[in-house]
Each structure stands twice: as C-alpha cells, then as structure tokens.
C-alpha cells in the first residue's frame, strides 16, 4: 500500500494537468502558453495537458498582474485546486507585476495573493522559456539564474588587489 502511495506521488510530475488563469494579462503570455501545447513545442510530450476545471488541475499557470478585481477570484481558484499543486507565474507581470506593478488597480505579481512555486519571466516568455520552466520544475534542467551581485573595485580594494566583479550567487 505504501508502495502504491509512493508511486502515486511519483506520477505527479509525469502527468501535470494545467489550469490556465489570466489575472489581468495582456494576452501575450496566454497565447504563448497555448503555443506550448501546439505541434512545434508539444508540452503533451511530458504529460502536460490543459484542463477546464481547477478540480482537475495540478498546476495553475498564472499570467498577468493580479488586478484588484480579480484577486479574490484568484484566491478562490487556488483554494479550489486539490493538493498537491504547483503555481507557475508566467511572464513578467505575474512574476513581478510588470510595468503595472504599483498602479492603483493591480496588486502586483501573483505572489502577492497566492504562493508561487515557479517563476518564468519574459514579456512574453518564449514558448521555449515556458518549456524550460516546466523542465526546471520537473528537475529535468538546472536553473541557470541566480541573484547577481556585481561590484566595481573601490580604491581600497584596488589597493589591496581584490576584485569581486562578476560573482554570481547560485
């Protein structure tokens, strides 16, 4: 029985059913999300498929800045999705609010309302970038970005011969 349970958990990553939620996006990301399912990119290779009801979903794809009007609905959507679930923020708006991150009628990125598991920046992200995000979430690919801390040498450091330019925190 425990073995079966484990198998069920293992299967999670191999059959991600996706619910696509536009929370105020401009359509760019939404179209690219659909594009990922089309022949050239074919996300269904990885068992990913688009579903119509949040009850069937394993993954919420959130596109767009969360507008004030849509925020309660997004919260309800999150609650309506069975655990375990992943939330992907697709595009710059969902990851960080885009160019409307601080306007009166948006709340910013998706993580202002619900917990986000993966961020896929881009405006809009290329279909490849979305696929890459999926690959990262499935552990098929390592993430390549990290916070970068760059610094020009100061006089003192120059004098000491130290330089930390270009260090990347993984």
């Amino acid at each position, binding site marked *: *029985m425990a073995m*079966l*349970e484990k198998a*069920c*958990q293992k299967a999670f990553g191999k059959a991600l059913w996706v619910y696509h939620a536009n929370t105020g996006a401009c359509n760019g990301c939404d179209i690219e999300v659909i594009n990922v399912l089309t022949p050239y990119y074919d996300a269904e290779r990885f068992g990913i498929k688009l579903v119509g*009801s949040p009850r069937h979903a394993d993954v919420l794809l959130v596109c767009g800045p969360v507008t004030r009007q849509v925020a*309660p*609905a997004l919260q309800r959507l999150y*609650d*309506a999705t069975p655990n375990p679930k992943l939330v992907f923020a697709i595009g710059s708006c969902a990851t960080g609010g885009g160019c409307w991150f601080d306007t009166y009628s948006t709340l910013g990125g998706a993580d202002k309302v619900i917990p986000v598991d993966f961020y896929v920046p881009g405006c809009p992200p290329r279909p490849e970038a979305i696929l890459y995000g999926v690959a990262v979430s499935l552990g098929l690919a390592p993430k390549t970005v990290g916070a970068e801390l760059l610094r020009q040498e100061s006089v003192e450091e120059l004098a000491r011969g130290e330089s930390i330019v270009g260090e990347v925190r993984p």
Partner: protein
Amino acid sequence: MTSALLLQTCVLLLLGGALVSLACARNRALAGWVSVAFVAAACVPLARVVVNVFAGVAEGETVLLALPALPARLTVHVDALSAFFLVLTGVIALLSTLFSVRYMEHFEKDTVAKFYPVLLVFFASMVALLVVTDMLFFLVFWELMTLSSFFLVIFERERKDSQRAGLKYFVITHAATLCMIAGTLVLWRQAGSFSFAALQDSLGVLLAERAVVAHLVLFLFFVGFATKAGVLPMGDWLPDAHPAAPSGVSAALSGVLVKLGIYGLIRVFCSFLPVSAASDTWGVVLALAGTVSLFVGTLTALRQTDSKRLMAFHTIGQIGYICLGLGVGVACLRTSPTIAALALLGALFHAANHACFKACLFLGAGAVLHRTGERDMDRLGGLAASMPVTASSTTVAALSISGVPPFNGFTSKWLIVAACILGGLQHPLFLVLGLVGMFISLVTLASFLKVLGAVFMGARDESRSVKEVPLSMALPQVVLAALCVLLGVFPRLPLGVLRDAVASAVRIEVPGADALLGTGFGLGLTAGGLALAFWAPLVVVLALALGGALAYAIQRAGAAKVREVPVWTCGELDSAAAVRYPASSFYLPFKHAFAGIYPALHARVPQFPAALRRAFNVDTWLYRPVVRAVDGLARGVSRSHVGVPQVYLLWIAVGAVVVVAVMLALTR
C-alpha cells in the same frame, strides 16, 4: 374460518373503522390512529385469506346474498389472481393510511371527517370488488370505489385545480363504468346470469355466433377497464386526479386503484375471452394501447415540473408497460403459451412493483410537500442533506421505476421486454414495441434523474430550514423502498406466486415455475430446451459488490485526503438559488422535440346557476346529515361549493339509458 367469513370480517372492520374515525374526527390524530388500527386489523384476516389461497387450500364459491329476480348472487371466491391484488391492496392501504396520519396535519382548514371514513370505505370497496365473482355486485363495488375515490380527489375542494380534477375524474370514470354496464348487459341478456362463469360462457357463444357484437362487448369492457387503469387516451383523468388528492391517497390511487383496471382487463381478456384468433387480435390491441400510453405518458411526464403530476403521468406510462405485457401475453396465448405466460408474469410483476415504487414516490413527494409546501420542483433543491430518509427511499424507488438493475423495476421490465422480443419472433410488431419499451425506460430514467437532481440534489437553499418527516411518515417509505430492493434481488419467490396467479387467470395450461424461469438461482427463460434470456440479479449484485470493492480499494490506494469545498463557479460567488439548475431546464432540447405529444386542453371549469350548485352540493346532502348526527362535527365541515360533477352525473344517467337501449336493440 372460511375465506368468505374472513373477508367479511375484513370489510366489516374497515367499515367499522370508517364509522369510528368519523366519530372521533374532531381529534385529528386520534382519528388517524384509529384508522390505522382498523386497517391493520383488517389486514390480518386478509393475510390469512391470501395465505390460504397460495397454500393451495381449495374453496368453492360462497354465496352471501342472492337476488333471484335478476338473477344475481353475491358470490365470493378468491383465486390466486384476486389474492395477488388483495396483497397489493392490503399493503398499500396500511402504509398509505399510516403515512396520512401526520400528513393530514397540514390541511388545517379541512376536517378529517371527510377523509378517513371515505378512505376506509374506499379500501373496503376495493377488497370487496376483488373477491366477488358476480358482475352485478362487481359493478356495485366498482361504483362505490369510484365514488369514494372521487371524494378523496376533491378533498381540497376550495382549490380550482382540485375541482377540475374531480370533475374530470367523475365524468370520465363514469362514462367508463357506463361502458362496462353496457357490456355486462349484453352478456347478461345472452347468459341470463351475472356470474362470471356464465358471462364467460356467453362471451364464447357470442364470439362464435355474432362476432361483431362480441367484439363490441370486448371493446366496451376494454374502454371501461382501461379508463380506470389509466391507459391513454381514456386515462386522461389520471394526471389531474392523482396530484389533487392528498399524497397518501395518491399513493393508494396509483398503487392500487389503477391496478384494479388491470385486474379487470386480465379477467376479461384472459379469463372470459376464449383462446382464439380473437385473443390474438385483442392482444395486439392491448399491446398497442399500452405502448401508446407508455410512450405518450412517459414523454409527457418528462416535461412536468410539478412533482406529483410528473408521477401521475408516469403512472400512465408504467400502466402502459403492464398493458404491453398483458397484450403480448394475450396475443401469444394461442401460438406460444410459454411466452404468453412470461409476458403475463411480467405484467403482473410490474403491477406489483409499480405499486411499491410508485406509492413510495408519491409518499416521498408528499413528504417533501409536507415539509416545504412545494410541489413545483423548480423551487426545490438540495433536500438530500436535510431529508436523508426521504431522499434515500425516493432514490431507490426512482431507480426502480427507471429500470436500473438490480432493483425490482428492472426485473419486470426485463420480463416484459424479453417477452416482446421473443414474441416478436412471431409478431415482428412486438419487436418494435419492445424497443419502444426500452427507449421509454430511458426516458423514465431521465425523468426521475430530474426529480432526484432537482429536488434532492443540486444547490441547497440555505434560507429554508427543512427537517426530515416524522417516523410514521418515513416508515412507509422505507418499507416500500426495501420492498423494491428485495423484490428486485430475489425475484424467484414473488414470480413463483405470480405464476399461480397467471395460471388461475388464463384458460391454458401454464408451465411450472421451473420450466418457465429455469432452475438456477436467477431467472433463465427457456422454451423448447433453448436458453432464451438470462437475468440473475444475485450474481450481478455480487459481481457489482466485488467490482465496487476493488474499485474502492483503488480509490484509496493513494491515501487521498478528503476536503469539503464550495461549488466552483468560475471564481465569482453566486447565491445557490441563482445557480441552481431548475427542473424545467433539464433536457429542454429533448423535451422540445416531443412538446406536442400530449395535447393540452384548456377547458374552463363551467359555472352553473347557484341554485343548481346548492342542489348538488355534496356537503349538504351527504356530509352534513351524517356529521350532524355525530355530535357537533358540523363546524369543521367545509363550506365549499362544488356541484359541477353531479350535473354530469345526470347527463351520464341519461346517456346510459340511451346506450343500453342501443345495446339491447343490437343484441336482439
């Protein structure tokens, strides 16, 4: 004790109960419980009679009263067929009376003085007419039954629809009775006696000598009984009358009263009618009439949103099934007795099953009406949580009537459809009728899924707090639902009994139960050594249990957690009342396709001069004297003024004379 004595006890108990309940009608509950007690008591001798019959204790006819002038004799004889219908009557009478005790509470304005006594008289008349073997007395009791049921239908006489329903019922059934009287008179002239045996012989003679008249007589009987049974087009009274009556009565009307029409049809077409080419023809007529009513009745039922009206239309449909089985049986009597026996078996079994599930459904609808005051299913929803017992028993009954295996409705439909298809090997017409039967069984399913979906499931209306009905109302439903399951899963026993009933009704040799139904624990129809059809409910239930258990094990394999959540409405919240899918919305495209199938007549209730109305006021000439006589009950008597049917009665009387004259002229 002899059967006759037992039956007299039974009837007297019922009549006594009527008087006692009238006497204590002031106390509603007391009157109710008294009635229940008397009905229960009456059931004891009744049960004894039935047991005797099925145990094979042979008894001859007993003469209780003779009218030598006519000559007519009040003879009593219980054969297996009568016994079967007595069982139905007893069970339904007891349960519907029990249900009515608390149910009558919500008719605050109306006195029960015009309810329990009439109800008990109604039961008594049914018992009586089932056991007499003399046509004159049969007709007398028939009329008594019709009248008493008429008063039950117009119980709520202030309501316009009750008035109209009562009027329609009165007119149509009396016209039917008239037909029966006319037919009887013709045969009586030939036989010189009203006894069944004599009439049977005279019909045979008539058929040989004057076939036209014989067929006319058969037609009159057919119209007469089919009207009572609710076969369309004569059964048009039914969808109005059943909903109008209090729910307990609806159950009795639908469970038993209409079955007596079937009883009559069986008596006429299986016992009276000799097995001949004529029986082949009349079999086809019966089957066609049955198919028409099941087709039209059920499809019309699908369009109803009033729960009781819906069920009334289904009564028409289900009677259609019985009639179809009967017809196939009668038609096959000559050519293939086995199939005929199977078809008749199916018809009778369906009659029994229909009594169970339809009574249960009416009681369920009554329970909902009692608690919510609503019959309009558009306004109901989500009651399963607050009325679990009613919901469960209604679900069982609904699945039964829809023919979902392994409930009882499926078994009888299976018998009828199998008989149709097997009979269809000789009469290809029956193939089509059988297919129609299968299709309509789906329509029934659709219709009752609507009832379940709209009334018990769906969005709960939080604004209305609804409680489950009290035990005395829940118990009858549970008993009937349990019967639905038991009869479905263990069909051998009832079918064995029914074989005797069939054997006693038909004039051919009926094979034994094993030869008909196979020797296994299920049903295996065989004919001439060839296995024809199989249905073993126990095996299927067992397999379903195993399969379901396996499936449940799979379901739990991932140890999923359960969480209760609100309904997903795309992210916005909406009130339950707004998003509820009302009954009228179900299957609209399909309903549109059959919209014109049941023509709606918009007849106005005619108005009559006040004087006439007063003259024919039932309350004045029937109740008030009686009620006055029994101390101080007059106050409770309603002051309503329905008089319309009585005028029709007059017309009918005139018409009857004319028809009889014509008949006599014809037979000369």
